[in-house]
């Protein structure tokens, strides 16, 4: 019995859903629109929605007044660097746990998960003093290291759940056909593992890009990624709405686009495989 849905009902549901969806999205949309206004138009009363003089001057201004691309590249280096480093460390571990599990594998996984639950303030003070003493404060290397460590449990977990879905029989079949271990890894396992690794990479770049506890506390100017750079707009520059909006739009646009592609992985990664 296929469910018949009246068109009327479908239209009503659509209207309600679109209205609520736009309401949730509105702050982002408003920021995007404001980024193309002059500062005067940005605070005009009543607010201007579409009919104003569109300009890109804020984007130019943000770059010239504060070295925007330095902070952008800091974000890229920290997010991508820590994710790749994390993958290099985590792939062998997840692989071992998925393909030759022992009695203790589950305990190890659980323990890894539990390290993620330590609140960052429990480690802030020693890490801050340690970084201060070794000159790692406000350095990209220091942040890459911290980011790698805080996301390592999620990376191991995600990879583990993906690797576990690769059927073991395929390995046996390859072995029966006389494939060596090297061949087995290159021709059989890698192609099957790549989608899982890519998903893990995507989600962790997003998480590291948006991380705002360690980045705010461990950077000042040189190594500050976009999270910390935007925080400097807190006051009084934040009252220049158009420039704040331009800086914000550039900070969130890349990750918003990546994020839309990773909806499914997001659920899996953030629930540690408990909801798929």
């Amino acid at each position, binding site marked *: 019995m296929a469910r018949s849905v009246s068109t009327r009902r479908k239209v009503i549901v659509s209207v309600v859903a679109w209205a*609520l969806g736009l309401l949730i999205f509105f*702050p*982002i949309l408003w920021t995007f629109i404001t980024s193309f206004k002059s500062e005067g138009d940005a605070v005009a009363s009543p607010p201007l929605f579409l009919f104003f003089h569109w300009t890109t001057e804020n984007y130019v201004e943000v770059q010239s007044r504060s070295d925007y691309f330095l902070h952008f590249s800091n974000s890229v280096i920290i997010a991508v660097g820590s994710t790749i480093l994390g993958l290099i460390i985590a792939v062998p571990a997840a692989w071992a746990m998925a393909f*030759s599990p022992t009695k203790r594998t589950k305990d190890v996984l*659980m323990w890894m998960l539990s390290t993620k639950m330590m609140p960052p*303030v*429990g480690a*802030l003070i020693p890490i801050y003093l340690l970084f201060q003493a070794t000159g790692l404060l406000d350095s990209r290397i220091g942040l890459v290291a911290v980011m790698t460590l805080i996301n390592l449990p999620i990376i191991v977990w995600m990879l583990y759940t993906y690797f576990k879905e690769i059927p073991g029989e395929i390995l046996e079949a390859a072995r029966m056909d006389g494939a060596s271990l090297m061949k087995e890894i290159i021709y059989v396992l890698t192609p099957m593992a790549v989608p899982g690794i890519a998903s893990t990479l995507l989600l962790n770049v997003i998480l590291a890009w*948006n991380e705002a*506890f360690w980045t705010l506390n461990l950077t000042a100017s040189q190594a500050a990624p976009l999270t910390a750079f935007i925080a400097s707009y807190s006051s009084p520059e934040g009252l220049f709405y158009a420039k704040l909006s331009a800086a914000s739009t550039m900070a969130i646009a890349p990750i918003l686009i990546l994020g839309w592609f990773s909806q499914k992985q997001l659920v899996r990664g953030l629930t540690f495989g408990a909801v798929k």
Partner: protein
Amino acid sequence: MATLQTRSAARLMMTPSVVLLLLWSLVPLAMTIYFSTLNYNLLMPGEHPFVGFDNYYYFLTDPAFFTALFNTLLLVGGALLITIVGGIAFALLLNQPMFGQGIVRILVIAPFFVMPTVAALIWKNMFMNPVNGLFAYAAKAVGLEPFDFLANAPLASVIVIVAWQWLPFATLIMLTALQSLDEEQQEAAEMDGAGLVSKFIYIVLPHMARAITVVILIETIFLLSVFAEILVTTNGGPGTDSTNLTYLVYSQALLQFDIGGASAGGIVAVVLANIVAIFLVRIVGKNLEA
């Protein structure tokens, strides 16, 4: 054919991850515990004498601690309530047949990808600002006095911002759970004359129990450590009205340079988070077996 050889290879492959996480989870914590027993202020050079549990005594009897603890619970509870109820509602809505479902889904999910500092600043300046914010315009348009949200209701404002960021997460997980709901079971219930409400209470809600639990636990972990949103909007103020535990420890350490006291606060936060963590590990562990 798990031979001894593959087993030792497996152990070798796990070593880097295990060792790094072991160091990361133990060394800073041990140092924090050690600092928490010292009279250690960065402004006072020289010796850091051992003071036992004094720092804990001062931290736990400081009125700011109770405010911060209370604010932390309100923040976690408030944001959870909004995101769970809102998430279920949105998931039910998005699960209906409609035009442009994919796009609506994208619109609803977007806030999750906005970095905390950006989210907080947009809300603070462009919406909640009592002079130029959109809410002020809206209030004036209907003849009301503009309300200074961050000065008069700082914690509630922070809760709104944080809930906006986490609503997409709750929605996404609830939606994933809803989509695995058995269609036939629902139809059978309808044939037996179940109304919308009883269908929701007896079929949909129990089916989503696991997703709801997961959302509560994971959000709690993150919400206990909300920091950036407070830093850029209210700086914990006015007074300590919007200070949570994380922010209190931060301000004691990096604004007042009281390493000993802040370390004691950090340990208190760790203990509280662990109470939550015990539940999370149990639930996720159970789901693993299923």
